[in-house]
């Protein structure tokens, strides 16, 4: 057994899963949403860095399932169940979905943060996963880190300091 703590980093439009004692982190969430799904008893947690609300927005090419709220949450949950998580005990915490720039533009893309949050919540509700805590909206970037042992989500922002959810 390797006891040194590793911090698994999740990039933009990416996902990964960790078990104790490791931590999982994603940096620089803006309008993107970080979704943490965890099974506390199994000390297993997955994190997806979601960029867009809906896979129907994809216009061409190979689809990156971690990019869209609807596909990412489903895939994350099914991967976790493969690794031994029990679907009835899964819980979720989310952060992100900020509005980084204030625009008066009519373009719907400018509201992408709130739309990402709505899409993630809808998907979690559909999969019957309880949303335990959230830190969404506002206009600050966030870096989040989750510890599958304590099930605390550590959120760091530039302007508002650090807090645990």
């Amino acid at each position, binding site marked *: 057994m390797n006891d040194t703590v590793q911090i698994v980093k999740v990039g933009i*439009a990416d996902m990964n899963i960790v078990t104790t004692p490791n931590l999982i982190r994603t*940096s620089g969430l*803006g309008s993107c949403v970080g979704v943490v799904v965890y099974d506390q008893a199994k000390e297993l947690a997955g994190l997806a860095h979601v*960029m867009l609300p809906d896979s129907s927005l*994809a216009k061409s090419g190979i689809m990156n399932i971690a990019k869209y709220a609807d596909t990412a949450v489903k895939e994350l949950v099914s991967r976790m169940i493969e690794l031994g998580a029990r679907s009835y005990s899964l819980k979720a915490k989310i952060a992100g979905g900020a509005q*980084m720039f204030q625009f008066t533009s009519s373009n719907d*893309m400018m509201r992408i943060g709130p739309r990402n949050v709505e899409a993630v919540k809808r998907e979690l509700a559909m999969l019957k996963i309880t949303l335990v805590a959230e830190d969404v909206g506002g206009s600050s970037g966030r*870096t989040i880190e989750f510890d599958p042992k304590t099930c605390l989500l550590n959120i760091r922002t*530039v302007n508002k300091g650090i807090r645990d959810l």
Partner: protein
Amino acid sequence: MSFLDKFSTVHLDVLKEVGNIGAGHAATSLSTLLNKKIDMRVPKVSVVSFDEMMDMAGGPENIVASVFLRIEGDAPGSMFFVLSIEQANTFIKQMINDVHFSFENPPYHELAMSALQELGNILSGSYLSSLSDFTNLDLYPSVPALSIDMVGAIISFGLIELSQVSDYAIVIDTALDDDDTHSSESVKGHFFLLPDPDSFETIFKALGVAEDE
């Protein structure tokens, strides 16, 4: 990679020239504004993954001051003028003549925020209007928005249009330096121009380069 497969080195060279002309004019404006000699580095045009793009600006957690604007018109896209906090401090000290000023601690000085936004406005405006003259395309900047935050949070916003089509971005990056690069008062900035996927064809056509050359 879909839409990126169509590009050859000729196309990338054309984009490099686009960056060169735009940033050249912006550097001149900056030089006039600060009454200083400003050097410009040769633009880099790269095809990068989203994560690599964050690294180009110092990593997703790096805190920067950034002016963002949407380009509207014939060839829509996003543009960023990115400065590190120290660089933003240097600029603003020179602009508002207050040596004690700093962006380290929020809440930020209102006048300084406004000055920084105006700086971004002037530079991106001159970048864009030279681009518009060069290509004969109608390009309008949106009102610029200013944000002091993590690179990841800021840049990802400009990638949204692109991310619906691709997992890679074509970045036209130009860095500006002032003359005395060794001093701590040195001024450095980055322009990132991110055309929307459909805009590449428009730009190439306007410059007489066939898409499949």
